[in-house]
Every structure is written in C-alpha cells, then in structure tokens.
C-alpha cells in the first residue's frame, strides 16, 4: 500500500466522511450485484448509472422491472395450508354426502396409504351455510371468512401430480415434483424485481411448530442465484437471521466499526482501480447496516391501532400468531415486498393440516387459528385501498380424500386428484367459483386445473406472461409453468 499521512477523519453518519455524491459515484459506478436504490434517491442514481462507462455499468438483478403488460397485482400473499386441508369439509359443499357416513363405496384414491379402489365414507363433519350476495356455501369452520366470500374466487377443481407431501410441496412452490427448481416467489422477483431493497423481495413466515417437509427447499431459488431466494422472517424476536448486532456493540459502536472497515476497503478499492466487485461489497455493508433498522421497523406493530390488531385476531391466543403474521404481511406489502408466504402448520401430522388421525380435532385447530386473521387481512387491505393490488392465494399442497384412511376414525388421507384453492384481490373476480369435483369430492370432474395453471394465473395478474418468463439453464429455456404453453384460469380474471 502506498504511504499516506496518518489522518483519521471524524466519524459521521455519512459514508466514511465522503460526500454523498462521492459515495454514489464510487460505488454506483461499479455495481454488479447489490440492490441500491433503497439507499439512494433513484433519480440521482439513474443519472449516475447512465454516466458510468459501459464496461462498469450497473446491473442490479433485483432492480424493479416493468411488467410485460400492465398487471393488476403488485404483490402476492400466499397463505400456505401445509399438510393439505380437506376441501369437502371447508369450501367444497357436498350435500349428496349427507347420510353416507360409514358407507363403503367404490372410489379410486391415492395417498400415503397407497392406491385404493374403495373406501369408507367419512361424511363432512361440519354444517355448511350460504354467505354473501353470491350465496357461497361455506362450512362452519369459517364463520369469519364466510363474510368475505363476495371478494373471493374459488377453484374447486385443482389437481396436482403427487399425493406425497415432499414432492407435492415442491410442485406447489416450484412447479415441479423434482427437486432443484426456483420457487414461485423467486420467479416473481426475477420477473419484476423489488421496489424496496432494504427488505428482501421474497419473504417466508413459518409456523412456530416447525417448517414444512423439505424445509428450505420450499423457498429455494434452485438454479437461480441466491438474490431470488426466500428469506425467513420470524414473527417474534429478531426477524432475520444474524440481523442483531452482538450484544456488546451499541449502534454507534457498530457504525464506528463499519466506518473504519470502509476506510480500509475504500483504500483497497482505489488501489484496485475501482473494481466493481469490490465496490459492490463496500455498498452491501451499508445496505446491511440499514436493514438492521428497516427490517425490525417493518414488523414493529406499535403504530398499529388496537382495533387493527383485533381485526387480525391478535388479542386471542388462538389466532395471535397467524394474525400477527398476516398483519406483518400487510406491512411488508405496503413497503414493496413482492412475495410473502405464510405457513399455517408445521412439523408433521396434527401440528400441520395433515389430518390422518382425528379430522375434527385437526381441522378445528387449524381453521380456528387462521379463519379470523385471513378475514381480517382481506378487510384491512380493502379499507386501505390495497386489496386490488395485492393477490391473496390460499391452499395446501393437495386436498383430502372423502373416505377414511383407517378402519376406524375420521382421518382422511391425501388427495391430489381434486382439491380447492382460492384467490382474492389482485384483480381477480370476487364471488365466483370455477370447476367441480365429483359428488363426493374424490376427483376434479369439471374444468380440472393443474398447479401450473394456478401459477400461470398468479404471474398473469402480476403482468407477466407465464409462457415468456424464461431462465436459461442446463441447455434449455426453463419456465415456471414447464415446456408447454399454459393458459391462466381466465374465468377468474
């Protein structure tokens, strides 16, 4: 290193004592990877990027991109009912099953217990009633959501390729039953970028009882770089891994340490001819520092009214966790996060929706935890004028069978031949239902839709053509929806 006079500049809240413009110029001129616009006034930034020599131009993989066509939704909140909710006990009304309890019927099923050709009917255990102007039949498990059905679009004829949790989870999240592809949230961020670089563009919130089967594979960016990977946000304590500075370092002390670090790094940067890789690393520390305050702020509920918290059920121990996560999701969407996924259910068996044993205990638990918060989320988004720009998606990796899994009891095995999902907001029609399963809900019989059509619909609402969103990998233009062209579910949009 060249000799320099000892000159320790006074520490400031500015970037290493340089002017803001110097900082912009030195780092912005050389960006290759870090999203920076959250740090900067974007107008100034773009002007600088334009001035930069072509060889060192700024390529930010998460920079906001124009959608392919004007999309209705800007963000997605995916409420993932992990384990597989029973459609015929919730939203897919089967009056013909009344009185059929315990009757053995011929029906093809495939689940964890293998393929079967007959089974003992378990009659839906809850009463249904009609709600809203649309007269939608909803079971007594959802008294709150029932109030919102005029804003909800139900798909009753969903199908998936696998009746096993591992591969079905991968398919619902990444389109493929095989491991290794990027998740929906990754594709959305790849296609649209993120408008707030101080927060991750793809956020995942887990059930405190555990993650889903295959854990992080469910928010992996697969063959795409890690910018597009989901970040786990906790609802209590520090929201993001390693966000909290060590206990023995105050905020000022850490700032001092960072300023000193950046002095070393800037000297080195200068010696290396302003190399863009080095400049990006310098800036990533500033972003990290900033994230330490923006991420906790995003989940800090102290500026939310008691009435709002109650709307989400945060005052009731049963609904407080999921309610808090739904409210966190709204706050993140407000701050520009593109894709938020909340898991209801974790671990295995009855701590998830996987009701193999006692259907009643299982579904009363999970519906009870989620009904009010979901209804609250819809209501809150509507009154804030955010509903039309926020697409809510509800469902699990599959549904459940009409028949019992075991000789005794009400437990139902998995069912990928037919199940229900719903969407709300984000420009989808309200009060509509498409597709049908047969009269006992064993398989989709009218307008069957595949997971990839659900994905296509989500991308379409965001202004992305699902058949043109491609990523070159392994000798092929890969797509979320697979090789063949896929149409969105036009009936809903």
């Amino acid at each position, binding site marked *: 290193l060249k000799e320099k006079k000892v000159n320790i500049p006074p520490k400031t809240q500015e970037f290493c004592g340089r002017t803001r413009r110097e900082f912009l110029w030195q780092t912005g001129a050389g960006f290759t990877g870090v999203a920076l616009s959250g740090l900067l006034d974007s107008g100034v930034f773009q002007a600088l990027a334009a001035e930069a020599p072509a060889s060192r131009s700024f390529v930010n993989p998460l920079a906001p991109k124009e959608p392919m066509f004007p999309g209705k939704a800007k963000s997605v909140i995916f409420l993932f009912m992990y384990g597989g909710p029973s459609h015929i006990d919730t939203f897919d009304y089967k009056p013909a099953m009344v009185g059929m309890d315990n009757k053995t019927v011929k029906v093809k099923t495939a689940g964890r217990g293998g393929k079967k050709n007959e089974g003992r009917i378990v009659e839906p255990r809850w009463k249904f009633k009609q709600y809203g102007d649309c007269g939608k039949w909803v079971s007594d498990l959802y008294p709150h959501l029932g109030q919102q059905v005029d804003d909800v679009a139900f798909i009753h004829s969903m199908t998936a390729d696998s009746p096993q949790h591992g591969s079905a989870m991968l398919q619902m999240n990444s389109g493929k039953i095989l491991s290794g592809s990027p998740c929906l949230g990754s594709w959305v961020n790849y296609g649209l970028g993120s408008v707030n670089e101080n927060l991750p563009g793809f956020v995942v919130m887990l059930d405190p009882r555990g993650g889903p089967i*295959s854990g992080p594979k469910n928010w992996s960016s697969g063959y795409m770089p890690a910018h597009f990977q989901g970040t786990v946000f906790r609802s209590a304590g520090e929201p993001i891994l390693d966000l909290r500075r060590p206990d023995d370092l105050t905020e000022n002390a850490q700032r001092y340490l960072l300023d000193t670090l950046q002095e*070393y*790094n800037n000297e080195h940067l200068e010696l290396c001819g302003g190399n863009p890789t080095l400049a990006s690393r310098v800036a990533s520390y500033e972003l990290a520092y900033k994230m330490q305050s923006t991420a906790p702020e995003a989940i800090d509920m102290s500026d939310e009214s008691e009435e709002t918290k109650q709307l989400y059920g945060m005052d009731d121990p049963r609904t407080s966790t999921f309610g808090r996560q739904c409210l966190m999701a709204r706050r993140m969407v407000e701050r520009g996060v593109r894709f938020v996924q909340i898991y209801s259910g974790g671990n295995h068996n009855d701590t998830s929706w996987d009701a193999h044993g006692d259907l009643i205990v299982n579904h009363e638990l999970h519906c009870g935890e989620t009904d009010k918060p979901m209804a609250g989320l819809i209501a809150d988004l509507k009154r804030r004028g955010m509903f039309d720009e926020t697409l809510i998606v509800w469902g699990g990796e599959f549904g459940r069978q009409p028949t019992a899994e075991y000789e005794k009891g009400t437990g139902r095995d998995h069912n990928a031949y037919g199940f229900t999902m719903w969407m709300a907001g984000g420009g989808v029609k309200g009060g509509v239902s498409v597709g049908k399963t047969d009269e006992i809900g064993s398989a989709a019989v009218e307008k069957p839709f595949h997971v990839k059509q659900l994905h296509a619909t989500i991308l379409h609402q965001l202004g992305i053509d699902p058949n043109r969103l491609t990523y070159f990998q392994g000798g092929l233009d890969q797509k979320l929806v697979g090789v063949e062209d896929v149409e969105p579910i036009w009936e809903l949009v």
Partner: protein
Amino acid sequence: MRARLIAAAIICFLIGITASYAEDIEDNPQSFPDAGAEYYQTQVLPILRAHCYSCHTAEPGGEVDSEFNMASRETFVSGGHSGPAIDEQAWSESAILRAINYEDSEMPPKGKLPQSQIATITRWVEMGAPWSDTTEASPAQGPPPVDDLARNFWSFRPVKRPEVPAVSDLEFVRTPIDAFVLAKLEEAGLSPAAPARKTTLLRRVYYSLIGLPPTPEEAKAFLADDSASAFERVVDRLLDSPQYGERWARHWLDLVRYAETDGYEFDRAKPEVWRYRDYVIDSFNSDKPYDRFLKEQLAGDELDLETASGIIATGYYRLGATDSGAAERLQAEFDELDDVIATTGQVMLGLSMNCARCHDHKIDPFPTADYYRMLAFFRGIKRGRGDSTRQIQVTPDGGDQQLAGRWEAEFDAAERGIQRTENRLRRHLKAGEADDFEEETYRPAIVRANSPLHVSEVDLAEYETFLTKRQELEDNQPIGLARALCVVERGPQPPQTHVLVRGSPYAKGDPVSPGFPSVLTSMEASMPTPKNDATSSGRRRVLAEWITSCDNPLTARVMVNRLWHYNFDRGIVRSTNDFGYAGTPPTHPKLLDWLASELVDGGWKLKRLQKMIVMSSVFQMSSITDDQTMERDPENDLFTRFNLRRLEGEEIRDSILAVSSNLNPKTHGPSIYPSISDEVLAGQSRPGEGWRQETPPEEQARRSVYVHVKRSLIVPLLAVFDAADTDASCPARFATMQPTQALTMLNSEFLNEQAKIFADDIRNEVGDDPKSQVAEALRRVTQREPNEVEIERGAQLMVALTREHGVAADRALQKFCLLAMNLNEFLCLD
C-alpha cells in the same frame, strides 16, 4: 528467472509441437478459398439456428414472425416489416446489428446474445453477409439435423494440435499458453497487464491450488526469496500438499452434484457416501490420470482389475436426489436415469443430452433416439437404497479380522438395543405417527416425543445411549473392511430399452441398443457378452472407454476448459457445461485445442497442466489495467488482465479458520456437522433432524470439504455465499453480493466466535500492545506488511471502542479481528 523460463518455453516449442493445425477460420476467415461461406456455415448458422430459426425460418411462402425469413440470403437481406435487415451500402449500419445489440428492437426477445456471438454476427455482416446454400437441405424448422455440417461444428471436430503462434514480445512468453494469449493481444494491438505484485501472486496461487491463504511466515519467506525458482518451488510444494486434493475435489464435487442425503420428504443420509468424497480428494492428490478417473466412476466395477477405490468411485451413480416416496415408481426410475445422463453428458462431454428426453433436442443435433441409446448403457442399474452398498476390502488383506468381528458384534448389540425400545413403542402408535415410524430416520424423534407416556425415562436414557453407540461405531469402522456406496446392476442382462414417446415410461416406442451420440461418431458400440453369473452387463465400461478414448473430441476439451475456468474465473469456453450450439464459442480456440492435446499426450495427467497454467505469464498478470484497455476489452475476452473475484463460501470459511489459527488439518473420514443455530433449524419440519449438533469444536474446525452436505439444510455461512446447488451439476459458482452476507460476516455466532479465537491467539503471540496486535491481525488476513496508517487506524478503533463505546478492553481486539475478517482484501482475490 526469466531466462530460465524462456528456455523452458523454447524447449516446449521444439519438442512438444509437431502436428500441424489448420488455420482456425475464426481467426482468419480470408485464408480459405470460400472462407466467407464456411464462416457462415460453421460460426453464424449455429447461432441463427439456436436463437432465431424458431420464429424466422420457413419454406418459401411459409409464415414467419414479422415476415422476416432467414431461409435464404435474399430474404434475409430484404428483411421484414421493419425494412431490410442488412444494409448493403453500409454494412455496419444494418438493422440486424441494431436489433441484436438491443438498440431499437430487441432480438432475440428472450435475452441478449452473449457478446462473443454478437461479435460473430457483426463480423459476418461486415464481411458482406457471405452465404452458403449447401445448408438449404436442412429443414428450416424443427430440430437441427445430424449432418456433415453438424459434425463440423467446432467442438465436435477432432482435436488437432495447433502450432504455437509466433509473437513478438518474447519476454512475456514463459509457456506456450502465453504465446496463444499474446498472439491475440498483439493482433488487437493491446498489451497484457503488468505482472502482479509478489504478495498478490502468492495469494492467488495459494487459492488456486489449495483454496487457503498463505501464512504470514510463508509469505515472508517467499518475499525474501529472490532466486529464480522461488515461485516454482511454491507451486511444487502446493501441488504436493494434501490440501491440493481438498481444493480440487470441491470443484469436482460441485460438478457431480455431490450431496450426502437423498433429498425430498425424508432426506435420508446416504450410507458411506463420504468415501466417494475421499476418493476424489485422493485421486487429485495422487494425480490419477483423468481418463482413469472417469473410467473408475463410470465402470470401476467392470474394469479388469477390481479395486476398492474403483468400487467406491461408482458411488458416482448414487449421488443424486432420489425420492424414495415417489408415487410413480417407474417414472422415478427414469427420472433418476435422466439425472445420470444429464450429469454424465454435461460434466464429461459438455453436452446437455438430457434435453432430448421427450423430443429431439431443440438446439443441438441430438435426436431422441440418441438419448435412449445412451440410457441403454445405464439400464441395468438397480434403483433403491437396499441395493446401493457392497462390502469391500479397503486394504488388500481386509485388515484385522478379529477386530472386524468384534466391531460387528458390538454393532449388532447396539442395533438390538435400539430396536427393543422401538418395538415396544410401536404398538402404542396410531395414524400418522405409526406411518412415520416406518421411516427409520424419524424414529428417534417419535420415541422422544412419546416419553414418558409410553417410553419410561430409564428406557429413553438407555435408548439414547445405544443410538450414540451405534453412531460411534458407524464413524469408526475397523480399518481394512468397509461398506461402500456403489453401483449395483440387476445381473448380466438389463431390461430392453425403448424410446419413450414424449418421455413417458408408459409409452414405449422402438427398441434401441446402447450407442453413442450419432453426431460424434459413426462407430457402433460393441457390447460384450457377459457370463450368466456376471453381476453386471459390462455396458458401462464400453461407454467409459469411448468417453475416455483419444478420439473423443469433447472429453479433453471440456476438462482443460475446466482447469482454465477454475484458475481464471472463466473458461476459454464460458459455458463450461455446454459445448453445444447454445454454448459460448471459445475465445481462444487454438489454445483450447493445444491444451486438450497436451492433456491427452501427457497421459491425461492434470498436475502437469495445472503447473503450466500457474507458471504462465497470463496467470501472473495484475488484475488492473489502463482505461483504454478496459474500454476495448470490457469483458476480458482477450485476457488483458486477471479477473478479480470474491472467494467462494468454502474458501471463506476455511480462510477464517486458517487466519484465526483454528483450522484442523485432519483429512478423510465421515463428515462433520458445524453448529447450526436453532433459528435456522426451525425451518425444518422436525427441527434438528439429521444434523448432529454435538460435533466437538475441534472437529467442527475442519475444512469445508468435510462438512456434511444435507440437501435440505445447508450450513448458513456456505449457503449465503452461494454454495453449489446439489440438485443438478453446478458448473460455476454464483458470486452474488448481498447485504445478508454482510450480516453474516458481522453478526453471526460463528464469526464472533472465530474473532474471539483469533484475538486470543494474537494476544498470545504478540502480547498486549494494540499496535502490534493490529499489525499481526492485518498480516494474517492480507499476508503483507501493513503500513503505519493502517496500524494507527486499527489501534484508534480499539481505543475508541473501549473509551467511548463501553466495549470491554479484551473485547476491543475481538472487534478488530472481526473487522479484519471483513476486509475486501481478505475476502476477494485479485
């Protein structure tokens, strides 16, 4: 030193280069009688086929997008809706060039072509868009045909050793490599960057060869050594060190998507898989010829001499993700064979043959039948866990038999103890829990969850003891005898292979026999007739012999390109796993072929080439060049300078351990489990499952290549720094720059623990003087003498932290050590 190196280079010129090599048409299209037409055919047409033809060709009168038809020169020139594509008055103003440069329109719409392909098309247009009608026979639409044109594609042609070009700056030429690179630089009127500083060079060669930084002592000794052979001696020492194999094995493990679990719902640990990792390390360390290395992995069990390492090598077939719970078994079987074809094709041949599974390859000349002929080589492989291991003798005598007997008895006792508790519990279990209990990996969690209700505390304690005992025994198997994860076939006769229509295992088409890709050879694969009691068909050996034959145009090219890639952070062919039409053509085709010839002629030994590469002037250039050169060679296509890069995750973790003097150099053996925080484990469906948190600290401090690779749970420090995805071959690491990396480096428990160890070690070594402490910390991370400013700055930080920010005196040094490990100079390599 220079004189000696030049002499060495000249000897290479004289003895090494005998075969002549036709002038490369890319370098000099005018030297051929019909050079323009050939340039169009061999360079331009593949690009058009891959990126334009699907929308812009048709038989005369057929429909094409924007009415722009590339099928003939006439229609090409006249263009479509937006006017002529080629301006015959001003070639370089042509609309096609503006389109591919994304100036007005943007073509192809899926993404801009790589700069090298844009350059090829630009050059072709500026040559006057020469045409060749011999291509008219090719169907305008549909998959590329297997014809003479395809066989003449640059990577499918036989390798011919080119002559080393003559250059003027002889000073620069230490190895023939330098002449190839310099020739292109001189042609472009550019100069190579100045030689890197000695300290920079030392760091660079350490990371290239062993993936670790030099110690301050090693750096000091090298700086003090002015002899001509100082650098060469360092290179030789590093190539001979066991860390060389650890570093280079990591590259290979990335390629073959090495992981130690099955993935999917259960993500079970693969038995004995670490022996494959050790096999790869040992192979690099012993400089095993690359052809032998491939043969063992593909067919170690079918070679004439069966060796333990040959059996372990076939663990290659067991490394992928496998869904034991797959609903469609037959589909899963073919998915796994596809995974083997994808990996073998991309890694060994640079071909994405897997794209021809459901239909003819859309970009490369591989019909579907070729895919299934390739699959037929692997058709005998048994799927499934029960059939994936074999007993092998690790030492010739099988080790101490008595010891082995005792081990087995103890192991059985532990097994029985575990089963006793499990069997007692089983009858109490219901529904989902009972089903889960059938999965062995889930049992301990379920047993624990059922205590004390159904398993008494005493029984649970006993159960835990047996579990620990079994694990200990598994980790400490008697030397000599072991089980190996390996390939197992059904017997001498595999089932008949058929072409599967649209890739569906239920739609059998024509039967096929094993065969090589038709574009690469017309040779028939001649199959051996195995004896009735043979354990395998012998087919894989036939494939292995073809892949490693000297005539195979791809194997050597692909491997020398990887050597180049891992030393220079980019391949001569940038798409290291794709040497097909959609790949990026080589920036230095002659250099590539020269290296490929050297590899084969040198008996497929890698260390020799590795040494030549790091001894070259090209490797020893500075990463800094002047603005004018930057402007003329922005992507470093010509190697005007060295590419600065961020270290990879494993290099970062290993370097942290090394500089804090905490690295445990222990080699070989079962994998280690660095601690993972509960917050991260919370993402698992059963938090903590499959991760052994009790690994002792000294074991945790081993190199990253020994860290357990669990598909669904990657150590956070490695994950955040772009660890290889293990579901498919990883040809190149991403090097993202993200704020979460900074958070990890500043706030994580691991970094702060290491900073403490680092600080303690420095205090032991230099005492309590802050300036000496700072100097020593900087010396360790940068391997150079820090200057006064740097020392003063660090000392001042420590004073300020203590006096103004309430940091305890002994902690201030830890904070400085943390800072030191965050320096760009430490985490990046220039």
